[in-house]
Structure formats: C-alpha cells, structure tokens
C-alpha cells in the first residue's frame, strides 16, 4: 500500500510526470500550429486580406474588443442559442411524451416526425425568411426547430421502449397515471431524451452560425460573414476561433457531462437516430 502511494505522490509533484508531459505536448501542438501559420504567412507573402497571419488576427481581436463589437456579438449569439435550445428541447420532450403515450399516435406520427427531422434546418431558412423576414425571429424559429426534432424523435422512442410490464406492474400496485408518468416512464425515457438533447444542441450550434450569416445584423456568425464581405478576413478568423471556443465550452461543460451521466447510469446508449 505505502510502497505504491509514495511513487504516485512523487509523480504528482514532479514536473516530468506523465500527465504533465502530455499537457506539454498538447500545448506544444497548439504553439507549433500558430508558429507554422505565422511562418507560412511570411513565406507565402500574400495580401493580408487573402491570407492573414496570427498577428493580424490578434490585432483584429483587440480592435473588435476595443470598439465594443465582439462582446455584444458573443452575448447575442449565446442568448439566441440558449433560448432556441431551451425552447426546442422543452417542446420536443413535451410533444414526444404526449405522442409516445399513445401507441396509435406513435405509429401514425413517427414516420412524419422522422421526415421533418430529415429536412435540415438549413433548408428551412429560405421559407422562414419569406415568412418572418431577415431577423431574430427567423433565427430563433430555426434553432427551436433544429433542437426540437432530435429530442422529439428520441423521446418518442424512449417512451415507446419502456417495458409494458413495468407500467402494468406499477398500475396494478395502485399507481395513478401521473405517478406512472413521473416515476416509470420519464426515468426510463431519460437516456433517450439526453441523447436527443446532445444531437439537437450540436446541430443547433451549426444552425445558429448559418442563420446568423443569412438573417442577422449581429452575432458571431454575422461577424464571420461580414468580415469576409468587407475583406476584413482577420475579423472572419477571429469569429471562427470564437465559435470554436464557444462550442468547446458548450461541449465540455454541458454536453459531455450529460453524456457521461447517461452512460454511467443507464449503460451505453446507441447514438444513431
């Protein structure tokens, strides 16, 4: 016991521990890419609007912050995304439960839901633009749409696959319909709901960027699009890096933990639709 504990503790303190070595290699990878990028800019020597270097991008970042453009853009994008995913997930779960509770309704509606799930949100945007014009409404509706369908579809599957034995058993033990819903159906459908949420949140983020490019006047997607339009390519790249970082935060802080709980508590869940 002690012989094992001491080297482990020593390794933790040592700079050359395997974990630290891994971190250093990872940091080195990021640094190497930035350095290689800057060198390639010097070697290739193209106009900065065509091939901006890390220094241009850094300057553009500072400028965008100084001029008060980037922070409100990030705020707008985050707000739209949160609102869209929240509404979409809620609607998806609610309708999924309602339909899923009836076998007949599930059989009737499942193929239709599946079909709407297959029309990517990108394809809806032209119609939304005609209905609601270029603006926030179009973006929110597109996000709600893209977040709702995976959740709806997976909730439906989750509710349909609750073993009938469980429902019958709790009913025969005197559980009311509401109790069955809250204590039997919802918990067993939860892993599917989480799976749908993860898929929906992922597609919704891509949908947000695209919708902002087409139908917005603010937001990080708009920054990427407008930067390229006005030949301020360094701003475009600031926008791209920003959405990359935003997605990493969303994925690491919100989606991965949800995935982890699903796997830990209910075993491996099939990801495919």
């Amino acid at each position: 016991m002690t012989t094992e504990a001491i080297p482990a503790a020593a390794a933790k303190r040592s700079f050359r521990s395997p974990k630290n070595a891994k971190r250093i290699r990872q940091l080195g990878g990021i640094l190497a890419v930035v350095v290689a990028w800057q060198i390639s800019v010097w070697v290739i020597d193209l106009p900065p609007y065509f091939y901006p270097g890390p220094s241009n991008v850094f300057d553009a970042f500072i400028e965008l912050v100084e001029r008060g453009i980037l922070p409100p853009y990030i705020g707008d994008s985050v707000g739209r995304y949160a609102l869209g995913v929240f509404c979409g997930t809620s609607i998806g779960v609610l309708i999924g439960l309602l339909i899923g509770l009836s076998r007949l309704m599930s059989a009737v509606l499942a193929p239709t839901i599946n079909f709407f799930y297959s029309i990517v949100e990108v394809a809806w945007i032209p119609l939304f633009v005609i209905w609601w014009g270029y603006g926030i409404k179009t973006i929110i509706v597109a996000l709600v749409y893209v977040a709702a369908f995976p959740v709806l579809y997976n909730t439906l599957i989750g509710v349909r696959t609750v073993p009938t034995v469980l429902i019958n058993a709790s009913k025969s033990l005197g559980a009311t319909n509401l109790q069955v819903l809250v204590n039997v159906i919802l918990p067993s459908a939860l892993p599917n709901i989480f799976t749908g949420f993860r898929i929906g949140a992922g597609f919704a983020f891509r949908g947000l960027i695209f919708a902002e490019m087409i139908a917005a006047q603010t937001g990080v997607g708009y920054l990427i699009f407008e930067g390229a339009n006005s030949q301020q390519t360094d701003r475009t790249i600031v926008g791209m890096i920003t959405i990359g970082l935003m997605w990493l935060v969303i994925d690491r802080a919100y989606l991965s933990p949800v995935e982890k709980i699903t796997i830990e508590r209910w075993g491996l869940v099939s990801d495919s639709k």
Partner: protein
Amino acid sequence: MNESTTVLARPFFRRWMLGLIPLGVALAVWMVAPAVADIPPFMFPTMASVLKSTGKHLADGSLVFNVASSLGRLAIGFVIGNTIAIPLGIAIATNTKIADVFQPVLTFMQSIAGIAWVPLAIIWFGIGDGAVIFVIANTIFFSNIYNTVLGVRSIPPVLFKAARSHGASEKQILFDLVIPGALTQILVGMRTSMAFGWRALVGGEMLAGTSGIGYITIEAVQWYQTEIILRGMIIIGVLWLVMDRLIFRVLEDRTVQRWGMIQN
C-alpha cells in the same frame, strides 16, 4: 391498452400504412386550404403550382442537373476529405506522443463548424464549386480525422503488445489490428460527418453556390417563389433520408455485425 396492443401486433405492412395517414391528411388540407383560407401564394404555394414548376424543371432537365451537381460536389468533398483524413489519422494515432501533440488542435478544428468556413472559402476560391467543395471536404476531413484517431486510440494497447510478441510485422499490425479495430468508430464517424457535410453542402451552396439544390432554393427567396423553396425542402429531406438509410445505416449494421464491436 388492449386495443392499442393489437395495433402494434398488426403486420408490418399495416403499421407502415398508418404512417401514411398524416401525409394523406396534409395533402388533403393542402388541396382544400387555398379555397377555404386566403393564403397568398408567396407565403405558401398551392399544390398545383408546385407540381407545375416541378414538371417544368423536370422537363427542361434543370432540376436533375441541380440535384446531380449537388450530389457530385458532396461525393467529391467526401472522397477528398476521407482520403486525406483516414491515413493521416491512422499515422497520427499509432504513436502516442504524436497523438498527444495533435489532439487539442484536431479537437479545436473539429469544433469549428463546417459552415463557418464558407466566407473564408469564398475569399480563397471565389463564389462557385471550389468554395463549396472546399467546405465539404474540410468538414468531412476534420470530423473524420478526429474519429479515426479516437478509433485507433480505443484499441487496447495490450493487443499491440500481444501481436508484436507473436512476431507480427508492422504491416500485419496495420492491416489485421489497427484498421479492423478502428473501423467501427470510423464508420460511425463517417455517418456523423456526412450529417455535417450535408448541412455544409446545402448551406455552402446557399451562400457560395452557382448551382445545386441549395442554390436554387435560396435564389427563389428573391422572387418569392415559394413553390421552388418548398420543393427544394422536400428534395433535401428525401435525399438525406435515402442516403442515411440506404447507405450508411446498412454499412454500419453490416460492419457492426461483422466485427461485433458494439453490443446492443
């Protein structure tokens, strides 16, 4: 409860028919609605106008041309992206240290959505095929190199040691251990990457295209031609369903069964 159990117990064919009910209702409502409610055609097209414009564009071949050019771009982007991603991913992943170096960069690049590259692609390649193919290839590349690395890294290190200690050559390890071991993850990844690639195709054509199903759909917005928009949406939905169900799901099921990596 009894009544509904019998519904499920019915043969497959009849259950399948049940799913067609909403389609029938929707079609009926669509046919009757213009007569009852006063919906302007620029908000929602009549069925007749959709059929008429579809017939017209089928006859002059433009619809087939646009769908074919979209699928062509998707195929080119898919092939380019995968031919670079899979060998490179395997090369990176077989060495732990190199994998560590590349991992954060790949994670980051994969998290930049495919569509976000469209404006940059327009600057580099101009409006047209080049930009759209670049965006698809880029999306597929980063999604799949990430999954290839994950797939190879998920092979238990013990297996490498065992193979080496039995005198397997590097070539044998590559073809008999690494590729089959990573294949399931690669195929699952391919399906996901296609979902993103498909969005990149439609979105890329809308922003940077000169032809294709996405291009004609967004072009119609300018003229309020909702019949073209609606038909475009239906085609986009059906194409994805066909691709996903007939190609990827079948491929995945076969390999998963064959290699037996996932237990359900």
